């Protein structure tokens, strides 16, 4: 199904456990999968035996979603897949004491101080972007000082050495470099906002 070896092995399956109907459905899906593989094979993302391509993943997600599952995991010796749907957790700070429960229930971390703008619609597009994340906890500044221009804007081209922002921690101004080449497509954090370790700061299209 999801990766080649398994497609093969399922084809090799003897005794046709499935009825005719499901068998043909399988063939159809496999065609779709091979199409998407071809499409992507032109890119650097050459499908390896143990990999999973986007189309397959999308199909899988649709499938799981369509049936209202919130969690899916798949794993074999080559691959492991897990899909889980975390509903946006009500924040624990709410006055209603019961709010502890939903927050607990949703398996989401507590209110993050530095709440990154979630933008879940755009999430799929942004998945392609390279993320510059904060290597330290601190306060995010886009320019060297309040009266200066920001280091970068949306649309700016960066090289690995380009300073993209400052994260202030313990009165120290830490210049953050892009560490990649590309174009700034997205800025996730407002000037002056606190950021935590690993928090995405910029989205870069390579």
């Amino acid at each position, binding site marked *: 199904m999801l990766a080649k070896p398994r497609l093969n092995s399922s084809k090799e399956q003897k005794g046709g456990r499935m009825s005719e109907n499901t068998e043909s459905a399988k063939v159809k899906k496999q065609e779709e999968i091979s199409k998407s593989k071809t499409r992507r094979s032109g890119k650097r993302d050459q499908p390896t035996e143990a990999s999973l391509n986007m189309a397959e993943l999308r199909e899988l997600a649709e499938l799981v979603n369509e049936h209202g599952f919130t969690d899916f995991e798949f794993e074999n010796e080559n691959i492991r897949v897990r899909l889980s749907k975390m509903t946006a957790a009500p924040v624990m*700070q709410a006055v209603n004491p019961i709010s502890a429960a939903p927050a607990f229930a949703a398996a989401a*971390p*507590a209110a993050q101080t530095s709440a990154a703008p979630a933008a879940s619609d755009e999430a799929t597009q942004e998945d392609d972007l390279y993320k510059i994340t904060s290597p330290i906890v601190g306060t995010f500044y886009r320019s060297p000082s309040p009266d200066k221009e920001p280091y970068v804007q949306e649309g700016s081209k960066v090289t690995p050495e380009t300073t993209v922002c400052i994260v202030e921690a313990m009165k120290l101004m830490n210049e953050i470099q892009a560490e990649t080449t590309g174009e700034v497509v997205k800025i996730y954090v407002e000037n002056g906002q606190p950021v935590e370790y690993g928090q995405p700061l910029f989205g870069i299209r390579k």
Partner: protein
Amino acid sequence: MKKREIRKILIANRGEIACRIIWTCKEMGIKTVAVHSEADKEALHVRYADEAICIGAPPSAQSYLNIPAIISAAEITNVDAIHPGYGFLAESETFAKICEDCNIKFIGPKPHVIGMMGDKVEARRTMKAAGVPILPGSPDPIESADEAIRLAKEIGFPVIIKAAAGGGGRGMRIVRKEEDLAVNLETAQTEALAAFKNGAVYIERYIERPRHIEIQVLADEYGNVIHLGERECSIQRRHQKLLEEAPSPVVTPEQRDEMGAVAVKACQEIGYSSAGTFEFLLDEDGSFYFMEMNTRIQVEHPVTEMVTLADIVRNQIRIAQGEELGFTQEDVLIVGHSIECRINAEDPEKFTPSPGKITAFNIPGGPGVRVDTAVYPGYTVPPYYDSMIAKLIVHARTRELAIARMRRALEMMVVEGIKTTIPLHIKIMNDERFQKGDFSTKFMEEFQH
């Protein structure tokens, strides 16, 4: 009287102690900030706290020991104080000092007191000066084998060589004969240097069958000091406590008063504030000797809370707010008997760590049972940190009833998916010598399991 009100506390720790601190903060109406590594995103302290900040990668050095990250987190969340818990930065003079410099109240004693007690040689000297009995031994680090031999003869064999900066058994050597001294001294120095970046060692009399008895103290910033009685911590494996009790099955009320008075006086002498613990070796003849002072909350503090009904974390926070203790030694009652078993994610026979996903988890309830834990069904115990996943604590009228209660609670506690020390604790509860209270710190070496 509150000199400074604490409205928000950052907890520079993880696991059950972070939850423990959050519980008291909630009871006091104080907001909490959890910090966590990338491995602890799903941890309970992160969920229970009002705010949470990821401070670094899973290894402790990059997260829970990462002072700049923690201070930054404290600054961006605008907390009034930091509670260090135990372990990690709890006994770091540097960290306490930086907190002070950043105008964040470190919940613990003054930095220089932490430093003083962290150096065993200095602690010993200070305590001796404060009238605390110490084991006959070298006042200063040993410089040479000759000096060691002269001292050992004076003290009398057996002697023990200990690292000045040490803990956890590293840099320790027991020497029973003069001819073994020189080589052991060298090994101990090497070990100490490797483990603590400090090769200084000292020598003291070695007691064959001591008990590990510790006294819990509370001291405010105005010289008011009380003690909450003793804890019996002799059941250890390789100097790691496995279970603790309060009170000790052998300490008499007179001994308690005596040890307590010594600890209280010492706190006043050194200007101690906050909660602290004096660890003593109790010899079979009833004499006791200072081992070290822990300038923080202990893992085993719940047994004291059970028998005294004091909330030690609350007292730490009140003291940090500049409040007076508000009660005296006469107000301290010790009622019944309490036992704590440390439930570790370990093979109960081999003591090898057993991290992994907990597939089923059930906490025993009912009278006299307390569980301090940060674990829940589905939680994955990460391999990066301490293996303790829960503390099971019981309280009953007598030691005999407490043992029966602990056995019941252990049998009803369910942890599936990983191995734990529960079976070992059940064996200890069923051990005749344990039941009689007839043991020393050698118990686990002699224990048949």
